[in-house]
């Protein structure tokens, strides 16, 4: 039970130029962000409801909002999971997906049962420094997804028994440069 009014109100308040340009005291700026985040959380339920009605079954939909720093409990721990890619544009799009994982080999199936090429790349030291204790993924699963206009596509991902670390295959350190 949710609706988008929480986010609408937060967006209404955030029309103030201080919210747009950051010209407010730090605690006020933090509050703008907090209100928008609460609005986003409420909208996640709205989206889950919409997807449940479209998909026709009630899934346990999960939103990972820190994928940009490789944090997502579900993909880090699960053996199998699904990724639903929704495209809000009125034209088909391709999108590069990066998911934090702890396995080194995965099988990805697209809706028509095709195997999707993917790679497992070590999480960089930069990301580990930024992420700190918010996650412990060792690798990132990288693949390209596509989605139809104003539509969605679901990819099924399953972890394969590990055959050696991804690191040795993907990483090539170059000789150090002068600082």
């Amino acid at each position: 039970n949710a609706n988008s009014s929480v986010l609408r109100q937060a967006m209404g308040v955030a029309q103030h130029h201080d919210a747009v340009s950051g010209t407010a005291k730090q605690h006020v700026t933090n509050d703008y962000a907090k209100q928008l985040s609460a609005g986003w959380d409420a909208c996640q339920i709205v989206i889950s409801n919409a997807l449940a009605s479209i998909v026709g079954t009630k899934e346990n939909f999960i939103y990972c909002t820190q994928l940009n720093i490789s944090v997502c409990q579900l993909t880090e721990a699960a053996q199998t999971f699904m990724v639903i890619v929704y495209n809000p544009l009125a034209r088909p799009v391709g999108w590069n997906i990066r998911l934090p994982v702890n396995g080194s080999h995965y099988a990805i199936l697209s809706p028509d049962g095709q195997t999707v090429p993917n790679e497992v790349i070590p999480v960089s030291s930069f990301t580990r420094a930024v992420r700190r204790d918010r996650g412990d993924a060792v690798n990132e699963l990288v693949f390209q997804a596509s989605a139809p206009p104003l539509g969605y596509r679901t990819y099924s991902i399953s972890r394969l028994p590990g055959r050696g670390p991804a690191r040795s295959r993907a990483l090539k350190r170059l000789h150090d440069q002068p600082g």
Partner: protein
Amino acid sequence: TEHLSWAIENQHLRVVFDSRTGLLKEIENLDKNISLPLSQNFFWYNASIGNQENSQASGAYIFRPNTSEPFLIAQGAHLYHVKTGVVQEVYQNFSDWCSQVVRLYDGQPYVELEWTVGPIPIRDGLGKEIISRFETNLQTDGLFYTDSNGREILERRRNYRATWNLSQTEPVAGNYYPVNSRIYIKDKKVQLTVLTDRSQGGSSIFDGSLELMVHRRLLHDDARGVGEPLLEPGDYLNGLVVRGRHLILLDTVESSAEQHRLRAQQEYMAPQLVLAPGGGPPYHPG
């Protein structure tokens, strides 16, 4: 020359790095046979705290560097390189608070730069405004282009205002404009476009260059109403770390508009990811 440079490449683009410095050296559009020497690095402007001419400090409302020349964060970058079938990445480490990943995804006609900046050190007592600057040999004649809210592209001319005779007192700040989704420079044939993933400030301070401000940390209030400096709490370890992406497009002037309009729209209205545990039967909208 091979050991002086090496490159990552996909079907459309080739990105060359200088082996000595670890910096970008050249970008080639393989489809259009365009090759543009290009270097990119991170700099910081020392924020003004006011001077004899003007007591105006740099702050939340006002951008005012105290000199026109920014400082380099590092001469070069330590690199490491990941090459896979889906993506090729080069990790550039400029300092322990500034790094970048240069990515070429398989089949994609753009270069992705994922920059991570912060916490900005302020132990030296200096406020800093961090920029990412691209330098090319394009003859731009003082012109560059920024968008307003992702729609209208405005032509910007350095040290000029269309509606009054400008006497420029701030060579850098006076030429900074809002960049809400893209900035580009071009000569008669070639256009270099940089798409942003958020609204930033940007400019072309000298011909052939363009720069975008990615982070700020300031120690003085600019006395314009906020009543405090743009100074997030925390020390060197706990200040704000910002991560974002710049997408570089290199194409002919004629073809660039279609490229950056579609790509910027897709960045702005990016696909949403929703996850669910378990395998479950694949679904298809059909």
